[in-house]
């Protein structure tokens, strides 16, 4: 029972990271109907920005927590900029092109970020500095680290903030309008280009936060770390119902739990397969995802 609870905690903590990254996928898919394959690489960039920033900032502020907060904020800002530039240079020129063209460009952008990072940062893994010294908290037979708790609460806080933004602000409403119907939104006087750029910025910032939070728990970072995480986060987004914010969070949590349970009680080599098995099952039985709405096909 205790080991089950322990796995549960680990699963939720992993799942909240997937959820953060999945949010970016789902938001971009919502407005552009584009699977942004480069999103996982933004998550990697977030971790690298965090790595270089923490070497600059660590110890310059009064407390560890403030250190971590500043590093995280700046890194999110950096990735938001990368997201905007990516949208402006690679996706905007082909917005009206076929879906396939968009998909291939997304693959190209992903490869470009990966290979450039290998040249700029070096291909070998780097050790992410310990921003917050680890302390263990024993609760009954359970072992929690303060890092796990911080990760979980930061992820939750970001999701709540995003939710407030999307459902309680005017810009958020515009974003929902764009994702509902781009052309109609444009006719209503919404600056759709701006909203799409903002969507990329927000999604990328969340991915950066995910990258840093992961690195606080698991300190090894490398230029290809975003490939698998990105893919799984995407699965999480589809699982919850792509285009749906709550769906992304739900999907992320389910996926995180499933993975941790499979590697805890089954074979850890099948860990990567479980994500895709879940994906195929959901797509066969309810292709629109758990919370997604089915689309009626018009002739």
């Amino acid at each position, binding site marked *: 029972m205790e080991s089950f609870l322990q796995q549960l905690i680990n699963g939720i903590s992993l799942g909240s990271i997937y959820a953060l990254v999945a949010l970016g996928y789902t938001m971009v898919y919502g407005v552009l109907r584009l699977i942004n394959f480069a999103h996982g690489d933004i998550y990697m960039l977030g971790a690298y920005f965090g790595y270089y920033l923490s070497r600059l900032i660590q110890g310059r502020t009064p407390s560890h927590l403030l250190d971590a907060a500043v590093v995280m904020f700046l890194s999110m800002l950096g990735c938001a900029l990368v997201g905007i530039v990516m949208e402006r240079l690679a996706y905007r020129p082909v917005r009206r092109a076929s879906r396939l063209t968009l998909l291939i460009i997304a693959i*190209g952008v992903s490869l470009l970020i990966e290979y450039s990072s290998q040249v700029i940062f070096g291909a070998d893994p780097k050790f992410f500095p310990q921003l917050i010294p680890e302390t263990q908290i024993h609760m009954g037979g359970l072992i929690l680290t303060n890092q796990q708790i911080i990760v979980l609460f930061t992820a939750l806080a970001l999701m709540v903030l995003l939710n407030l933004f999307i459902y309680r602000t005017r810009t958020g409403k515009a974003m929902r309008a764009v994702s509902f119907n781009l052309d109609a939104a444009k006719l209503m006087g919404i600056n759709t280009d701006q909203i799409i750029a903002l969507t990329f910025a927000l999604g990328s910032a969340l991915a950066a936060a995910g990258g840093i939070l992961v690195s606080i728990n698991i300190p090894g970072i490398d230029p290809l770390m975003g490939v698998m995480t990105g893919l799984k986060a995407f699965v999480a987004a589809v699982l919850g119902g792509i285009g749906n914010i709550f769906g992304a969070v739900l999907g992320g949590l389910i996926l995180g739990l499933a993975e941790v349970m499979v590697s805890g009680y089954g074979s850890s080599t099948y860990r990567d397969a479980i994500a895709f098995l879940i994906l195929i099952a959901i797509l066969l039985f309810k292709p629109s995802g758990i919370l997604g709405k089915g689309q009626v096909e018009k002739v």
Partner: protein
Amino acid sequence: MKRLLWITGALAALALLQWGCSAILLDGPIRQGPYYYQIMILAGINIVLAVSLNLTNGITGQFSIGHAGFFAVGAYVAASVSYYGGPGIRAATAFLPAVGQDTVVLLLALAAAGLAAALAGLLVGIPSLRLRGDYLAIVTLGFGEIIRVVILNVDAVGGARGFVGIPKLSNFFWVYLLVTACVVTVWNVVRSSYGRAFIAIRENEIAAQAMGIDVTRHKVMAFVIGAVFAGMAGCLFGHYTMYLHTNSFTFVKSFEIIIMVAIGGLGSIEGAVLGAIFLTVLPEAFRGFEGYRMIIYSLALILIMIFRPQGMLGQASLFGKKSKGKRK
């Protein structure tokens, strides 16, 4: 009779080329000969992969990103046949000379690879009945990855260590024989009534159905034909490199094949061939700029897709008349 002549002629030409290539490149005075020879082999395998994917993606319009999965199934099944069954087959055909025995082993491996990949194609093709567009793409990607993870966990084929000790049976002759077979088959399929049905499905599924085309059957058929050739390409790949590792069959490989098809021109057979050659040779040509070459490669990909989204050839055909389905 005429067809028989053609086939014999093609076989003879390939055999001659094989003899010439190995004499000049492998045993000849050119220092980098074996390197060029290998590029030619890999280009051939990529051509088969691109042309077969083009049938599913470009001609039938069913976007699949799991082609590396079929490639992997073929490679591993064929390697198992010749590794585990090889000695038995050789013993049974002991009356033949060594070359004959090799041929029998390779042909059996090829058949097994094609059959296994066809089954996998059937398995992936069935969900395509329910899904379209992005969702189908994601499912095929998932299938490809699952196939890879399953292979990774089968110890009989080496698991995470990789499959070592596959006999070297394939060469220029076999690879380009498969290239010819693949191109001719896809070419003929596209120009048959099946091909017109494929194109009709790509252009408008509902209209195709209304015209009496069995959409389900044709979609699965496109998947299976594509998978068979990818599997056979896998067989020749494994029997050339003599070593297989699941890392060669990740979704990155599937992306690579899609990029070949897209750069060449989606739906154009000649385009797929050119794209495959281009993308095999281009990274090699930039080998001098180690590290930067993949950046150039990905940048080139983005720029081509932005400025010429229809690919190098678009849907144009280099040879022969335009097919009826493409006429506006």
